[in-house]
């Protein structure tokens, strides 16, 4: 067990490799109740969401969700989040556990729209069921037609008799669902899902596999690839940064950075030998430190050692070789396209 954002959480159940493989080939169940929820309600809800986040929530349909960034006035990340449109006057944001309180405070500070902003984390538990068999397993417990919930959409309904918000989202690179419900039902829903998934080879998964899966899928982790010093352009997240809806927090800085060009860019790399470039290790170009590994480690499904790092744009071209400093020795790595892993369609 490890402390993660104030939550006591298992790093692994049966082992990171076994859990990782289960999610890529069968299914895995994650208790992600640590994740925070913030609900914004009222006629001003959309205005507030639009001001504090960089993706364009005006484009969301009812029952649709998108990935976005909660922005500082400097165009950097307070957090990354999922925005769910429940109604024209009700949005549910899923945020990182460790950032929940500061996110809430940040949103409240910019609430000139008279919206109600609720720090709703204590009212929710969340389970994530992920992997190619996730849909079939969950379907056994719910009358909701899961095939009708498209990717990054959600629906309300019962699972195992419990009222849930069932979203077709995830943080693993696989198909799957994230299920939000009231905490008193967590033991029942976990137990019923494990029972339904056991025969299909589903495994309970901890934080360790959650990290290797998201890294292999090239997804950012707050505090590693993104934080309040990095912008969406630098992080390769231009697709969630919709300048046409400006002004929003930081949009002037982001417009300026787009005109001026970047001084660094997030890249993916593969180690060419067996040694592993890990979080925080230096990346050297011409013997000089040019950046640091933001996340690095084994990619169990790809059977390679991979990582991400910020580098000057002139050294960020796919196919270029870089050097990662590993305990005083330089090891060659090759810049590769992100994501490392993409599930077969």
């Amino acid at each position, binding site marked *: 067990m490890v402390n993660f954002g104030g939550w006591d959480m298992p*790093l*692994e159940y049966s*082992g*990171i*490799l076994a859990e990782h493989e289960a999610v890529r080939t069968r299914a895995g169940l994650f208790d992600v109740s640590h994740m925070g929820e913030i609900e914004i309600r009222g006629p001003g809800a959309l205005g507030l969401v639009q001001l504090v986040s960089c993706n364009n929530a005006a484009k969301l349909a009812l029952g649709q969700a998108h990935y976005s960034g909660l922005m500082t006035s400097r165009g950097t990340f307070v957090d990354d989040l999922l925005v769910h449109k429940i109604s024209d006057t009700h949005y549910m944001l899923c945020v990182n556990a460790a950032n929940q309180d500061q996110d809430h405070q940040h949103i409240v500070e910019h609430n000139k729209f008279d919206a109600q902003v609720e720090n709703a984390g204590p009212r929710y538990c969340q389970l994530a069921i992920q992997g190619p068999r996730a849909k079939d397993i969950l379907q056994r417990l719910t009358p909701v037609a899961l095939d009708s919930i498209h990717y990054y959409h959600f629906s309300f309904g019962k699972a195992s008799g419990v009222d849930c918000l069932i979203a077709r989202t995830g943080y693993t690179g696989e198909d799957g669902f994230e299920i939000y419900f009231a905490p008193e039902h967590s033991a029942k829903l976990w137990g019923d899902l494990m029972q339904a998934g056991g025969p299909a080879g589903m495994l309970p998964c901890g934080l*360790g596999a959650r990290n*290797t899966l998201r890294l292999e899928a090239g997804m950012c982790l707050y505090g590693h690839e993104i934080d309040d010093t990095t912008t969406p352009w630098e992080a390769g997240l231009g697709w969630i940064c919709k300048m046409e809806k400006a002004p929003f927090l930081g949009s002037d800085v982001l417009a300026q950075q787009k005109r001026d060009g970047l001084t660094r860019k997030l890249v993916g790399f593969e180690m060419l030998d*067996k*040694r*592993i470039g*890990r979080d925080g290790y230096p990346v050297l170009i011409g013997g000089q430190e040019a950046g640091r590994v933001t996340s690095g*480690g*084994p990619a*169990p499904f790809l059977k390679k050692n991979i990582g991400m790092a910020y580098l000057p744009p002139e050294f960020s071209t796919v196919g270029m070789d870089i050097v990662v400093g590993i*305990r005083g020795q330089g090891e060659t790595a090759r810049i590769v396209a992100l994501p490392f892993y993409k599930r077969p369609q």
Partner: protein
Amino acid sequence: MYPKDYRYTKEHEWIKVDGANGTIGVTDYAQHELGDVVFVEMPKLGAQLKARQSFGTIESVKAVSEIFSPVAGEVIETNPALADAPELINKDPHGGAWLIKVRLADPKEASALMDAAAYEAYIAGQAKEHSA
């Protein structure tokens, strides 16, 4: 669980003394703490190790750990099986996953280390600290 004829260190290595030579590995407790092992970095043959000197690293999915020599000696063999099957460390830490063999500088040196009973008491204390 912990062989009676081995000696143990606080850093969770074991040594089995056989005359002038010793075989060194990491304990079951260590492999459990490391999780899935994916790579082992070995010393060169002929390397002269001092007691408590780092002689290699074990990389698991989640972390990298140094391995320290329990005693002084010269490396005379490294386990060839671990290059292709580092996961042996998780499966058979006290047997097939031995790391190195050394020619002991002093065959009596290992007797100052913890025996199995002392080591078991030591890790029971560590586990308590963890859960506190």
